[in-house]
């Protein structure tokens, strides 16, 4: 299996405080990798190092290497804008723009100049909405505000928005944590569907969710990677005692 992302000896600091300790991890192409662990264990921080979202925090500093398709994204000549186009992101809280449903999806296509004419733009917006399994619900109201959608629909809109710029990797930071079980199920089905085309990294607090959608699971604690294994093995016969305690809820 080809590695899409390969992280070695990554350390991460917020000022003097070290948030990640010496992480080494391979993320295979077109698979779903889940990050689990207690709150504050660094899994979200780690996710955000993969598209350099942490750059927006002035005191944050990373060392070590993160290779995506063999290229070090922390090399000084990295084009962060291009990186983020390639590595899309979906956030914990759905965050649509205060624009119409259509314009939410069109935004990324427009700023990256990925369309030839109006018809092409409409076609690409439609495809993204189809791929996010949202088209049938919004096709008659594309020009209405995105805030009129339900929470689950808004989150799928954010997924569609990320898909629209044709990324290769999608990072999801607890994408279903604010949704009800039915909306969550839709997102999970979507993740399994998207795996055919995209490499997906998902942070989740929901262990059943990790078990259901992921191929591999990484367990983090206190900024350290405790165990990284095939999900099946992780949830039935983990190598580490700590992992087993966490997964079975026998913690502390």
């Amino acid at each position: 299996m080809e590695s899409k992302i390969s992280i070695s000896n990554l350390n991460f600091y917020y000022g003097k405080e070290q948030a990640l300790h010496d992480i080494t991890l391979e993320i295979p192409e077109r698979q779903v990798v889940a990050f689990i662990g207690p709150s504050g264990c660094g899994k979200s921080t780690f996710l955000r190092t993969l598209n350099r979202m942490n750059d927006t925090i002035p005191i944050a500093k990373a060392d070590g290497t993160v290779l995506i398709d063999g290229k070090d994204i922390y090399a000084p000549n990295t084009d962060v804008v291009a990186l983020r186009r390639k590595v899309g992101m979906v956030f914990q809280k759905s965050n649509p723009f205060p624009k119409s449903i259509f314009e939410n999806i069109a935004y990324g296509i427009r700023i990256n100049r990925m369309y030839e004419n109006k018809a092409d733009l409409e076609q690409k917006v439609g495809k993204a909405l189809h791929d996010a399994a949202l088209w049938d619900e919004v096709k008659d109201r594309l020009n209405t505000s995105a805030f009129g959608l339900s929470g689950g629909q808004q989150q799928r809109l954010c997924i569609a928005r990320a898909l629209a710029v044709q990324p290769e990797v999608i990072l999801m930071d607890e994408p279903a944590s604010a949704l009800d079980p039915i909306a969550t199920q839709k997102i999970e089905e979507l993740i399994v569907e998207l795996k055919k085309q995209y490499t997906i990294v998902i942070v989740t607090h929901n262990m059943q969710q990790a078990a259901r959608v992921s191929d591999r699971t990484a367990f983090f604690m206190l900024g350290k990677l405790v165990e990284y294994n095939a999900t099946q093995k992780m949830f039935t016969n983990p190598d580490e005692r700590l992992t087993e305690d966490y997964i079975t809820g026998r913690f502390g």
Partner: protein
Amino acid sequence: MSNKESLHRRRKIVSSLTTTITAVCAFFAIAVLLIILSYIFVRGIASINLQFLVDTPKPVGEGGGIGNAIVGSVLMTLLACVIGLPIGIGAGVYLAEFGENLFGKTVRFLADTLIGVPSIIVGIFIYTLVVLPMGRQSGLAGGLALAIIMIPIVARTTEEMIRLVPDSMREAALALGAPQWRVTWNIVLPAASTGITTGAMLAIARISGETAPLLFTALNSRFYNYFYDQPMASLTVQIYNYATGPFDVEHKMAWAATLILITLILAINILVRFLTRKRF
């Protein structure tokens, strides 16, 4: 049981008391404004007619109006907006998005100070800087003085409004590969537009009511003047002149001009709200 009931009753009394007290406060806040507005309306409406709106001031007893003052006020406010709004909004964007450094902190402090400076000092400043070199008072000088008053107000309100835009929205745009300037320009600014408009309206209302900075800079004029290089009449200075005159007919015209000024500010407010209303 009875203890529970008395607790319940107490809670209801406190709740209705709080509602009543705040409602009374709200009533007083709006009542003063209503009294002022209705008083101005009653005193002013009688003297308003078409003649009054289009005529220039004439010697006492020959009628006269405020036509040139309306034009002057509009022209100088317009000039102040053309200069003050872009600079003020631009400065506000800088302070909110990039202003966490020494320069930003200095600018913020100076802007706050400038907001508190009496407006007549701004008039004297422009008098020294523009009026003396030009050799005469002018609409240009008046507009500049108003712009200077406007800039810090617009800058600070813009900054506050932009800070209210949630970071998650910025992150969403950044994660799509949007460069920082695009995030600011077509995500943050539109999201904050309603608040920025409110700030701009407050600033426009404030400068429309200024008299002191215009006394030194635009002076006044008895004639229609559409050009910025000559002294210019304004509603506020005209009101001052009429109100301080010895004759009752002048006082009536001062009331009428005040009513016109308030109506103009209200009209601009409604128009701008309509034009910049939120569609999403």
